[in-house]
């Protein structure tokens, strides 16, 4: 295995704190949430294992008999949910990356018997393919047909979060009050005014 320090991108002289910071940053980067339904999920898992191992190794060598300290050893599984029997095979195909086969079987199901799960699975396939706009429409349709299903809702929410720019891009809604005067601004202004007055020998706020 390669040098655990270079895996985490830190120098061998780094403090424990620096190492755990670097580890947490990388773990956040490779977190399965970022790769849900992505064709790169396997690669991300591999990377995650790599940094877990590196982190464990460093900890072990630094503190004999220390805990494993793994940030994410529980393992995430995104396909553990049930779904109906009819779609079981299709779910398996998607899970194994055989997208074209899954798509073909799905397309064979007549329009009249397409239920919420059909739209959800079709959306998953489209998402894999990179057709994100179509995927979004299909997830929406699935949620409309079965509003109580948390699996469909989660997929739609995830896409909404991506659209809002939480995973990169640009968010047009300003995070601060544009040009407004908040309570904090008032306090700061008063403090400044007081300091100025004191410079000139006066006083604005008597207690300080």
């Amino acid at each position: 295995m390669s040098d655990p320090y270079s895996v985490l991108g830190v120098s061998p002289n780094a403090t424990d704190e620096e190492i755990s910071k670097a580890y947490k940053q990388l773990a956040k980067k490779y977190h399965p949430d970022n790769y849900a339904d992505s064709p790169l999920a396997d690669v991300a898992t591999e990377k995650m294992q790599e940094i877990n191992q590196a982190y464990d190794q460093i900890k072990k060598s630094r503190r004999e008999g220390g805990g494993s300290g793994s940030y994410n050893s529980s393992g995430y599984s995104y396909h553990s949910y049930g779904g109906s029997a009819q779609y079981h095979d299709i779910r398996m195909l998607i899970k194994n990356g055989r997208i074209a086969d899954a798509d073909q079987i799905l397309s064979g199901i007549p329009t009249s018997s397409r239920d919420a799960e059909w739209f959800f699975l079709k959306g998953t396939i489209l998402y894999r393919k990179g057709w994100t706009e179509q995927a979004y429409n299909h997830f929406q349709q699935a949620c409309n047909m079965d509003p109580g299903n948390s699996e469909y809702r989660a997929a739609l929410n995830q896409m909404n979060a991506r659209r809002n720019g939480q995973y990169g891009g640009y968010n047009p809604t300003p995070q601060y009050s544009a040009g407004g005067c908040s309570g904090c601004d008032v306090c700061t202004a008063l403090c400044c005014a007081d300091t100025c007055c004191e410079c000139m020998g006066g006083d604005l706020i008597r207690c300080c």
Partner: protein
Amino acid sequence: MFGYLQPYKPYLLVKDYELYKSVYCGLCKKLGKKYGKLARMTLSYDCTCYALLAMGLNNRCENVTKKLCTCNPLKKCLYCADGSKELELASAITVLTVYYKLEDDIKDNSFFKGLAARFLKLFARRWRKKALKEYPEVDKIIKELNVNQDLAEKSSAPNIDQCAEPTAAMMKKLVIMLANNETEKAVLGEFGYFLGKWVYLMDAADDYHKDIKSNSFNPFVIELAHKNLTQKERSCYINGLLNETVSRIVGAYNLMDIKSFKAILDNLVNLGLGQMQKKILFDKYEKDKNKKGVINP
């Protein structure tokens, strides 16, 4: 290509900015050397980005040398000292994209409107011949774009994903060429696909009003024209699609093993794309409001 792939300068260290310029100038010089002086006019930011990516993945050293500028004999420019192979590939992509763009323009316009394109094509033909000899696979990839784009636009009910597919697929293939193993192929393929999609969507968003005026094909016009949205609503909708695409770019990028030029590429992916969305979708329409000079990514 279109020049949307740029790092966000205010957040780039000066040394990284100089390094970026050295690649830009290096590509310019390479174009001149390989394809003649006129070919230097085709230099673009997108191909610079491609060169950066290629050099970053192959661990080219980040040294620069100072030489006379090829365009202005009174100026000295920085040139990157390494990466001749990558620059050659990027310059081949540059001239081939230009050639096929011209071909497309000639086909879409009437005889007189396409006259300038016809004239330029006389030169482009020679560049293409040379590039074709050395990079036949690149020529094939870029050639496919026009054919597939036509097919997508002429299909019965074109949707946005379908229209973006040819550009995305082209970029995917071009970026995959830089991969060294199977895992890298998967990661770079995803990165390239969504980068291409992003560029296509940006271009379509940028040309929205122009295409309405000239009655040209534009996927957003088809999708949104009948919906009666305000400018702001339309921008927000398109911005959402772009953010989604960026999230996939960032995901793939984080799995990539960038060995050099990392600071520039990090900036480009994490800030540059978002800031370009802001510039094209929002700033363009908000010029009268005094928000212009604010640096707030």
